[in-house]
């Protein structure tokens, strides 16, 4: 099973490499922009996958936590002149605390409840966070102006923005860091065990509740910090997070539960196809529909597979 799985991933990697080369010759801008876009998607999806894989909860408020992280970084920038990259650290700490509070006051109570209640709860949380931002900052989009974000480079006649490669680096660091954490630290291994079988983990002496608390808070802390670098390039408004929740789930569903590396691969498909559609004159407005087509396709394929089995 594991071998088969690996083989499938490599097929995907190979196919996307061929497509990438073709695209690089035809529309290099689309490829570069698509890779940058997909790194952002992968980065945001990873903490959500962590919670889904280990705590077993779809956090529909995931994008909203990122949105609030972006607002925090904006506030720090405007009032204290703090650079968004420096603001990642206070955002991480602040959102770790917010994660602990959210877990202890809400998430904890639905862990044993039907999936339906869990979804409704996190949806309610998402609404609370979104409307809180709406009350405090109104729906007016905000944006910081930083000199370095418009950095660009040129290869021959083709010039492109280089700043967004920060997202690529950040996504790579996050993925590497999470894999190291899960495979090579005691806490990470314990978390994986809890994700696989909570009862078994409890039997061998792992504190399951504590693991859930730590993993959930870690995920919120990470996504809050990601919010800080998200706002360097994007304008922020209360509804900005919702789409990222949906796209993150789309990537997780495509990669399969617990497959963090797969998320990186599939985010490329989403990101590059979005930037391809965005580059088509007159059809740019349809880019927001791609993730929906992908997720529907994945569900059809998956249910088909299940019937065959």
């Amino acid at each position, binding site marked *: 099973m594991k071998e088969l799985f690996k083989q499938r991933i490599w097929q995907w990697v190979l196919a996307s490499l061929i497509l990438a080369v073709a695209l690089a010759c035809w529309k290099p801008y689309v490829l570069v922009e698509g890779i940058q876009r997909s790194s952002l998607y992968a980065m945001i999806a990873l903490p959500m996958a962590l919670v889904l894989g280990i705590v077993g909860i779809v956090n529909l408020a995931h994008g909203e936590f990122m949105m609030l992280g972006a607002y925090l970084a904006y506030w720090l920038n405007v009032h204290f002149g703090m650079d968004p990259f420096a603001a990642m650290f206070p955002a991480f700490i602040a959102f770790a605390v917010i994660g602990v509070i959210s877990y202890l006051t809400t998430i904890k109570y639905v862990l044993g409840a039907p999936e339906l*209640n869990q979804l409704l709860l996190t949806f309610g949380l998402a609404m609370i966070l979104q409307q809180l931002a709406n009350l405090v900052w109104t729906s007016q989009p905000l944006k910081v102006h930083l000199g370095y974000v418009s950095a660009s480079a040129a290869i021959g006649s083709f010039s492109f923005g280089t700043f967004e490669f920060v997202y690529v680096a950040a996504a790579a660091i996050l993925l590497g860091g999470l894999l190291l954490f899960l495979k090579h630290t005691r806490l990470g291994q314990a978390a994986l065990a809890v994700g696989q079988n909570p009862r078994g983990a409890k039997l061998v002496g792992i504190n399951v509740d504590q693991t859930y608390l730590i993993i959930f808070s870690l995920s919120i802390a990470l996504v809050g910090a990601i919010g800080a670098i998200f706002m360097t390039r994007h304008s922020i408004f209360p509804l900005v997070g919702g789409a990222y929740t949906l796209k993150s*789930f789309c990537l997780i569903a495509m990669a399969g539960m617990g497959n963090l590396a797969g998320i990186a691969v599939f985010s490329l498909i989403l990101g590059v196809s979005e930037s391809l559609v965005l580059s088509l004159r007159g059809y740019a407005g349809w880019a927001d529909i791609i993730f929906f087509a992908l997720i529907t396709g994945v569900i059809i394929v998956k249910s088909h597979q299940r019937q065959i089995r």
Partner: protein
Amino acid sequence: MKTRNRWILYAFVTALLVTLPYYTGTYLLSVAGTILIYLALALSWDMLLRSGQLSFGIAGFFGIGGYAAVLIFTNAGLNPLISILAGGAVAGVFALIIGTAVLQLRGMYFAIVTLALAEIFRVIIRNLPDLTGGPEGLVLPAAIFSGDSTSTFWLILAVAVTALIASEIFQKSRVFFALTSIRNDEVLARSSGINVFKYLVIVFAVTSAIQGIAGGAYAHVHGFVSPEGSFSLDFALLPMAMALFGGMHTTWGPVLGAVLLGIAAEFLKLQIPYGHLLVYGVIIVIAIILFPKGIVGTISQKLQAR
């Protein structure tokens, strides 16, 4: 309650509602109309919830029903009432297609697909400006019944009563027992010969059609549709909060929730114009944590325990 007393109560409430336009002002009538629209949405949402499937797509089908009703009315020149029903049919067909595609994989997959629906429909509408008027939306030459508040109220009342009757029939039909058994134990339901997928698709289509009819009525009453207004989050969040607050899996829970929260919503809208939706998020979270059965469920549980 004895059956006879219950019928007397129904007759009394119906008479009260039908004659409401004769002793209230236009403002109260429009508030009552809004509450009844939300009541229809809350009930239809809960009907699907009884099968254990969660749809966030209320606003999507509400908006699609509204757009379809307006487009059919302006392009085919049909009677507005028929166009409202046609709007419901269009929403139902959309739900049938989407349900057939994704209901094989249930739970969170279905929930998230429906969560995206309102946004996806909005993108489609915005990108077909020739048909749908694009971001500006469409304006009807005149509101239905030339804006007469009495007939308008009766129309909305009819929509709400339709949802109510559908829900009650539903509670007593084979479909209900099939759905309840799916919610309780899908494997068991499957092995007792219930075609789980078929029932779920049918119920999803029917409840979405009700939401589409509510959307069509709303569009005709207000005389316009727009991507932002017709697919507004209000039409998903409020009905959900109402049904949860009143009590899931019953007919009277959503009704009670809609009346209580609907009245509260009018005050809130005046007090906090921006961000009054916050309250509904809080209601959903508190209801799920503290009383997942809602007011009706909690009270009837207490009564039974005595």
